[in-house]
């Protein structure tokens, strides 16, 4: 995503001109010499230096000779180029032209190696190790230390600093990249240097392991093999790996990743470098959670149900059985999860309209409302007002129903960076100040579930600083309170602030753009616009497109149960993610015919009539559209002929349907063909529909007499029991412990005047209309009468086993 526009020429360029190794170069003021040298093609060796961390000058590897500091005087001794800003007229001689600099660098390299083990052959970093590489380029071949009987410092090896991260202390060159990253970027200063001299080492506080959502970045930027992951340690050699660029599929941030694979198997994933999106950082989930595609219950061949049992089938048979079943089932609907690529979502959207002749399609496998669908059509589709970089420029960023550290980790890092620079104030409307908000120095505007409308309305007050320069980020959870999205839109309209929607899943925004909604057609075309339907119908070669606004996910479930709908095509929906898991399961049972496109066995495949395996992201090309409207395309990592993208499977069913007189073929079989079709279709250029909040839902029922009512607040933590983290025991072990949070007054009202345990050792049982859960309770600064629990960190999760978010639950003290 690089821009080709050049900055306009200015007279005062703010550039500083200096001479490096005899070559004149002009660089922006305050550039460090080490980076100015890169401009003339000189790589000065370095360890502690990292462009995204504050300079520290610890390793001294980057020493250069400065015969003239720009003031006519030189430095008598070599200087660390990673801490020295350029100056007009400065003369720098690096190792390329200066014997002094070269000897200084060789000397430092020799020192670094005296206490470094010669275990490169068994070290995971061997082959991609900055120390190894730079020792070859800037060091001596033989060790004077070893040949004269020097004794190395040693440590027992390795030690776990978290369930995921291992530390080999004797390999560490004490560059402090990991500790600086954790403190400066992630805001999780759980590791620090301890002891002194050569015994200095990275250490953890014994009672707080290095449990950071971003710990993998510290491993990646370690310039030696001191930090390794339990996940990848001893798994492969870097020179055996093939690297393919990719896009993280775990959230709507579109973080660039690098997929390293060997013989058809992903071995690890690393952060890619994209300054406009994730810079060089990704979350541990983006990095470590990829084995869900390698677990044992992966579906590898089509199956059809015969005499109540699923049996293997050929693709052609499965397509034909699916087509016939859908034809015979009567009216059919489509439910897709939020994990689809934009191309696949487009295929579902077209399949619904062209093959099934319906607008009954919804990608929202989560609690959702008609207001949200309207909001997506009016404020989200085709929008791209806010980018990552805009967040850093905004004086105020308002978070509504969004917990970035858990729900959009890459976005969180950028927000924290903006806040750390002191120019951006983060304001969050939430049940309590989360750790993420605290790390962003954010201000909480507390809101009990259900009160968001009034609270958002109050943000218009000047004290909150929401002006036209502000940015409002709306999370998908805001839809849980009727009127809240309208209130957010009003706030934006009233203040001139820009608004952006940040869903939790990678495919959500792409599904909006692709028209996987009952009220939107592909390209942001409003279904209610006749011209949009006509244009699209013509482009698709269909006589007419269904004009009636379709059922949303909730209505589809209800209609299946009632028998108004008979057929269902489900693509990647976990029943426990839906608004009412029990109702969803009942609808599956009630449906006359269910076609499931799935990666792994689920409760849907277990009852489906036809099960069609689909490709995981590594096996297909695709595009994820990020929360800021950025199309992030990626190529297939593996060319696996047995692994078909959803769009190819749908195309096969559509062909069979067309053959028996239903609809038309979709007209594509490959991702490239879908991309071409989407490209030529283009976006809607007409007016956007207005936001319609619709009717308020029925009020939630009051608790029984004598019970204290608590409003249920919840969201999913970044690392939890989500199925895309299956197979990652080490990652899961770093998840935050599930707890229930209540205010101090609530705590005392439930548990009496007991002294609250800071560690949350007191247990509480939360009971809702779908079940109950017992969790440790901790006191948080939040409104009374509200309880927060993590949504998917126990059992089958809040929706399946506790209650609907925002509904009323009761609390009772419990003993283990």
């Amino acid at each position: 995503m690089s821009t080709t526009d050049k900055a306009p020429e200015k007279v005062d360029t703010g550039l500083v001109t200096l001479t490096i190794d005899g070559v004149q170069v002009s660089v922006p003021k305050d550039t460090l010499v080490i980076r100015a040298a890169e401009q003339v093609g000189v790589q000065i060796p370095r360890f502690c230096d990292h462009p995204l961390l504050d300079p520290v000058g610890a390793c001294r590897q980057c020493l250069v000779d400065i015969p003239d500091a720009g003031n006519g005087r030189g430095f008598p001794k070599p200087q660390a180029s990673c801490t020295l800003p350029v100056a007009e007229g400065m003369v720098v001689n690096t190792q390329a032209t200066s014997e002094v600099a070269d000897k200084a660098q060789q000397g430092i390299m020799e020192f670094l190696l005296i206490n470094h083990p010669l275990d490169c052959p068994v070290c995971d970093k061997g082959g991609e190790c900055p120390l190894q590489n730079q020792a070859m380029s800037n060091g001596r071949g033989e060790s004077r230390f070893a040949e004269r009987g020097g004794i190395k410092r040693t440590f027992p090896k390795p030690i776990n600093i978290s369930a995921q991260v291992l530390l080999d202390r004797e390999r560490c060159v004490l560059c402090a990249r990991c500790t600086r990253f954790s403190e400066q970027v992630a805001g999780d200063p759980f590791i620090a240097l301890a002891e002194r001299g050569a015994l200095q080492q990275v250490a953890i506080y014994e009672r707080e392991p290095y449990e950071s959502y971003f710990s993998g970045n510290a491993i990646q930027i370690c310039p030696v093999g001191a930090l390794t992951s339990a996940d990848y340690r001893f798994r492969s050699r870097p020179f055996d790996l093939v690297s393919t660029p990719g896009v993280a599929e775990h959230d709507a941030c579109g973080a660039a990743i690098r997929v390293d694979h060997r013989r058809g198997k992903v071995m690890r994933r690393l952060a890619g470098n994209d300054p406009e999106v994730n810079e060089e950082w990704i979350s541990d989930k983006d990095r470590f959670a990829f084995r869900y595609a390698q677990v044992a219950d992966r579906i590898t061949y089509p199956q059809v149900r015969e005499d109540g049992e699923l049996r293997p089938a050929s693709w052609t048979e499965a397509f034909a059985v699916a087509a016939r079943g859908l034809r015979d089932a009567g009216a059919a609907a489509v439910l897709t999860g939020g994990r689809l690529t934009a191309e696949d979502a487009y295929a579902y959207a077209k399949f619904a309209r062209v093959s099934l002749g319906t607008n009954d399609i919804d990608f929202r496998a989560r609690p959702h409302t008609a207001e949200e669908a309207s909001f997506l059509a009016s404020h989200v589709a085709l929008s791209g007002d806010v980018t990552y970089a805009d967040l850093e420029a905004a004086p105020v960023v308002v978070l509504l129903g969004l917990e970035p550290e858990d729900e959009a980790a890459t976005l969180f890092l950028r927000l924290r960076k903006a806040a750390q620079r002191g120019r951006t104030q983060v304001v969050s409307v939430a049940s309590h100040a989360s750790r993420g908000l605290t790390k962003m120095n954010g201000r909480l505007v507390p809101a009990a579930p259900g009160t968001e409308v009034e609270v958002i309305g109050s943000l218009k007050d000047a004290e909150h600083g929401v002006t036209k320069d502000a940015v409002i980020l709306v999370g998908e959870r805001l839809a849980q309170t009727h009127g809240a999205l309208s209130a957010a839109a009003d706030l934006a309209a009233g203040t001139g602030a820009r608004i952006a929607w940040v869903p939790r899943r990678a495919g959500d925004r792409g599904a909006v753009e692709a028209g996987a909604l009952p009220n939107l057609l592909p390209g942001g075309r409003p279904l209610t616009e006749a011209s949009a339907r006509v244009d699209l119908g013509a482009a698709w070669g269909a006589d007419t497109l269904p004009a009636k606004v379709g059922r949303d996910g909730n209505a589809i479930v209800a209609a299946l149960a009632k028998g108004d709908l008979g057929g269902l095509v489900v693509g990647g929906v976990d029943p426990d993610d839906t608004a009412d898991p029990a109702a969803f399961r009942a609808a599956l049972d009630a449906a006359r015919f269910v076609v499931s496109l799935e990666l792994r066995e689920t409760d849907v495949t277990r009852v489906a009539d036809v099960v069609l395996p689909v490709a995981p992201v590594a096996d297909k090309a695709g595009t994820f559209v990020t929360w800021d409207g950025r199309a992030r395309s990626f190529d297939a990592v593996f060319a696996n002929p047995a692994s078909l993208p959803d769009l190819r499977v749908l195309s096969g069913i559509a062909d069979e349907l067309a053959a028996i007189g239903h609809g038309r073929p979709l007209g594509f079989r490959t991702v490239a063909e879908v991309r071409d079709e989407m490209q030529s279709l283009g976006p809607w250029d007409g007016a956007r529909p207005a936001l319609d909040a619709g009717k308020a839902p029925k009020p939630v029922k009051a608790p029984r007499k004598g019970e204290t009512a608590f409003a249920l607040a919840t969201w999913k933590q970044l690392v939890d029991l989500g199925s895309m983290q299956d197979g990652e025991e080490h990652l899961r072990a770093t998840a935050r412990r599930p707890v229930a949070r209540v205010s101090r007054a609530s705590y005392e009202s439930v548990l009496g005047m007991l002294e609250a345990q800071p560690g949350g050792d007191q247990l509480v049982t939360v009971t809702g209309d779908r079940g109950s859960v017992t969790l440790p309770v901790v006191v948080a600064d939040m409104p009374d009468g509200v309880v927060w629990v993590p949504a998917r960190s126990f059992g089958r999760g809040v929706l399946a086993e506790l209650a609907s978010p925002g509904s009323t639950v009761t609390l009772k003290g419990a003993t283990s």
Partner: protein
Amino acid sequence: MTDTLTPVLTDNWDADRAWTLASYEERGGYAALDKAFAMTPDAVIDTVKDSGLRGRGGAGFPTGMKWGFIPQDNPRPKYLVVNADESEPGTCKDIPLMMASPHTLVEGVIVSSYAIRANTAFIYVRGEVLHVIRRLQRAVQEAYLAGHLGKNIHGSGYDLDLIVHAGAGAYICGEETALLEGLEGRRGQPRLRPPFPAVAGLYASPTVINNVESIASVPSIITNGAAWFAGMGTEKSNGFGIFSLSGHVTNPGQYEAPLGITLRELIDLAGGMREGHELKFWTPGGSSTPLLTPEHLDVPLDFESVGAAGSMLGTRALQLFDETTCVVRAVLRWTEFYKHESCGKCTPCREGTWWLTQTMARLEKGQGDEGDLDLLLDQCDNILGRSFCALGDGATSPISSSIQHFRDEYLAHLTHGGCPFDPAASTAFAPVGAPA
């Protein structure tokens, strides 16, 4: 220039209970306050500038100029921090001063803080010297009770709080930015400069960091005038200083004299070398200053002359070693000290001292060959000026200077197959006249 002692800071050390406020005030203590408060703060700075007082912690930076660097238009509070983390091997002037007359320092802190417009000052004391910490704390308490500290001191409208902070036993915390880290509650490791402490020091506020002796000298300058102070010493090294003689000398101790006095004069004042022995080598200012030999006995002990002789005046910690001392052994002990005290932040100091110690230890045992001497010098060359702070530089000084002056003695270890000296002969308990 005078060749006699000039007791100013040490003048009251022999007074009865010299450390008490009563004793100090009886001799005119705290009178400099009123004189200073009658002046503008800038006038106090100018007086100190005119006196030519240079930092007594070793580097010799002009104290008044340092105070003048404080940006007075900076809205943040200003701080004075007294570096009392005296930990250099051989250096023993600040701790005796604080032990004998803590009020001299407290008075200096008040005048100096007034000059730089600080309302909070800190004395960062080496943590091991608990007796000194207690004495300082008591002195500060006395000063508060007597109205020399606190609100509206002496009715001047000037407020000052003085905090005595105990370090945790790290030599590196004598480095001023590491000291600030320690004072802020972090690990003592030096900070990147710039920003310099004068601009963003303690709690990112303008901060002056001065040695104990520098600050303790200020009241006498205010009382007696800049010209009085400048009249002592040499042209560019004005005033007096405490010379601490230790080692093989008849009467070790603190000798306060004008800068520019020679070691020959000081040894005479101290009753000569240990009886029956003669000087072999010495450090002018602690172990971090390159060794000198008897040929330097007449070098004037001021900043310029000692520098010209190839060493540094440092802290005037004159460690004297007679001919019974094995220079290799002495240097190894120092090297071990630097290895133990290296903070670990930068590579050359952390790894270099680890290696130097091993090489030195082998040489002392007579292992290795002449190439090890060249290796040592090369290691020193790779540390000196390449380290993050001066600790690494200091670690190389005794090694490179001792090889320069005593290369043959190193070689003798190799030919002798070990140390040719009797280690007992250099000890304090060695019988008088023991053979070398």
